[in-house]
């Protein structure tokens, strides 16, 4: 039993942190946030790709780093600390894992280099409008034609779809099998409605109207889609959990600092017992959340998909509660300053709110935790 990071993991964290410290401070990031056309920083994204982080989870035979859940945990925590707006989650986690799990060698050879170089980011669509977090409810259809497959349907809140060169979507075939197809975002009939998410990252709703894709675009066969997308979702949930932890740590540190410096009624507000106890509770919840991220990371290494999902969902349910508590409490303890956009806390709070929403909220994961028990 060992909870320490390997030397390699420490190096990963440090090199990532350094890249962000120099090129992505609060003001530079603000400029990215105010850019209405590109929702992230192409320069930062290049740096991330050049440093090899885009290949963190790609297998070594695809020129990836071959990292696993522990490495992802380290990276995601750090990305959240620096409030990254880059499409790491959508492309380097979800698209990479999907290609690795779903596609044959040809497709992988074709698309992995673009993911790793960062120049052809991918995205994965999990849900459809009105279906909340039920990815097994697929109304999008795929009909075989002479030239390939014709897709029709819609996908909701596809993370990173704004920046993606291609998007993986599930669609129902005749006979009700659900398979995964790759759609180029510039194909005819693909309509994206891009927007920022709560924390500033990009996403889009997706409409597919008679979109024709080649036969090779079908990544799975025989209805494997839901199992594979579930595993991709589990990776995404782990990413959210680790991001949440990173954001909680920063919100905690900012608040502790504020308690020590901010004066009211002639004394630092940290001298008030109620705020001391609040702060003790925050520290405590962050520590417990960290334990739950470890638990989730360890589960991703396991073989049994039910146990994996049970643990991932349990961890998300716990961490979402901690995230809400820390986000709401740290704002409250800051008073007015906590709600201003110009102070970093509100940005961590937004991230903590987003991580609660994406890939299943607390109620959803509590239910999944019980179902998989």
């Amino acid at each position: 039993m060992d909870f320490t990071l390997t030397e390699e993991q420490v190096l990963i964290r440090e090199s990532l942190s350094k890249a962000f410290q120099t090129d992505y401070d609060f003001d530079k990031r603000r400029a990215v946030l105010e850019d209405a056309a590109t929702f992230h920083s192409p320069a930062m994204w290049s740096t991330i790709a050049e440093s090899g982080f885009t290949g963190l989870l790609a297998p070594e035979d695809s020129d990836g780093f071959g990292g696993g859940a522990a490495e992802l945990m380290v990276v995601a925590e750090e990305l959240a600390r620096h409030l990254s707006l880059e499409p790491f989650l959508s492309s380097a986690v979800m698209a990479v894992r999907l290609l690795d799990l779903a596609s044959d060698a040809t497709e992988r050879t074709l698309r992995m280099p673009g993911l790793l170089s960062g120049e052809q980011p991918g995205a994965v669509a999990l849900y459809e409008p009105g279906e909340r977090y039920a990815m097994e409810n697929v109304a999008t259809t795929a009909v075989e034609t002479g030239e390939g497959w014709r897709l029709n349907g819609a996908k909701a809140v596809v993370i990173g779809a704004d920046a993606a060169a291609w998007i993986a979507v599930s669609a129902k075939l005749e006979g009700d099998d659900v398979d995964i197809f790759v759609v180029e975002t510039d194909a005819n009939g693909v309509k994206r409605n891009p927007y920022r998410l709560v924390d500033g990252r990009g996403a889009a709703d997706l409409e597919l109207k008679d979109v024709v894709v080649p036969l090779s675009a079908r990544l799975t066969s025989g209805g494997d889609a839901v199992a594979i997308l579930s595993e991709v979702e589990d990776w995404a949930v782990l990413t959210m959990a680790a991001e949440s932890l990173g954001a909680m740590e920063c919100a905690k540190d900012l608040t502790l600092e504020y308690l020590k410096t901010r004066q009211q009624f002639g004394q630092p507000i940290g001298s008030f017992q109620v705020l001391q106890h609040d702060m003790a509770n925050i520290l405590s919840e962050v520590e417990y959340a960290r334990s739950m991220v470890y638990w989730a990371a360890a589960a991703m290494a396991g073989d049994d998909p039910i146990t994996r999902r049970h643990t991932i969902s349990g961890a998300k349910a716990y961490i979402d509660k901690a995230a809400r508590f820390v986000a709401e409490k740290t704002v409250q303890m800051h008073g007015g300053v906590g709600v201003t956009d110009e102070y970093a806390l509100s940005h961590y709070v937004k991230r903590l709110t987003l991580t609660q929403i994406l890939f299943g909220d607390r109620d959803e994961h509590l239910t999944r935790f019980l179902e998989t028990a």
Partner: protein
Amino acid sequence: MQLTYDEDQIAFRDEVRAFMADKAQLALGEDARHGMHLTKDEVIAWHKALAERGWIAPKWPVEHGGAGWDPIQVHIFDEEAFAAGMPRLPNFGLNYVGPVVIHFGDDWQKERFLGPILSGDEFWCQGFSEPGAGSDLAAVGTRAQRDGDNYIVSGQKTWTTQAHWADWMFTLVRTDREVKKQEGISFLLIDMKSPGITVRPIMTLDGEHQVNEVFIDDVVVPAKNLVGEENKGWDYAKFLLSNERTGIAGVGQSKSEFARLKMIAKTEKRRGKPLSEDPLFQAKMAELELELKALEITNLRMLIEEKDKGAPGPISSILKIKGSEIQQTLATLTMEAAGTYAAPFIPDALDASWNGEPAGPAFAAAATPYYFYRRKASIYGGSNEIQRNIIAKQLLGL
């Protein structure tokens, strides 16, 4: 023990309800309910309608153009207005500075200021908070130096809601630095068009511009704009804050928001079933409904006490706490109801004039911004921590 309205109150309610039905075209219905922003014109149209009917200033005495209602009537009016989807009016003139001028102002001030407040021709903002003071309102650093018929005022105010709309600002300024901090404060009315006033927007995490910093740089203010006596401003501020307590529970608005949430729960699905059939979501809804019921009855108990005894007293602190918690839970559950569609963040979509493409159901666009907005409910007007201090000291003698 009689928990229902008496005959007179029911008649009054029916009168208000009929008025609301009559003015239904002014209410922005679904848009307003879904958290869309109103234009200034829309707000003014509603203001004028109320002014015409003599209902614009519920609690002002009739001789000053008010409705002269008792606290229960004010409550009934609020409930009906919110139920009908009418917008909340900016209340810095009507509920804050107006009563102060009526009670403590001189004839010239009453003549000059009350009319434009009633007509809606002049908007006000509140210059109380200062940087670094937080809930310690008496820590006023802005200085006013008497100079002949004027005061020369310098300092800074912050968290000033709608300062960018306002024509006037009522302020606390320090006129004596030698005495206890509460004793050297005066209550001064400042024209926002005065040279030396600079308004800087503060963007908040809901993506909105509502509050501002106001820089006051050697601003010349005529001495006739001083309300009451010099150095007695703290008394007027306390009077103003005690008025703020009525309606602090926000029962009418929360009831209207709860009704909307119930509608939403009927259409939004979780695992193929509407949220109105989801046991976890329903349990949260039921608990919220009961909290709101407890707040409503307790608020009525306090209003009757206020009606009988003239002032709500410190017990209203408990209304402020639960009222704000309920507002926050309402926003939280609405955000949860939006599911995945709580994630997109498109503040522009809240402008009625926006013509972009919405993501998800209509209510979803405002759900998360509103959740963020409601974080303020437990901070402003004396944070909930301050309210608990007040309860402990004034009600419990600790």
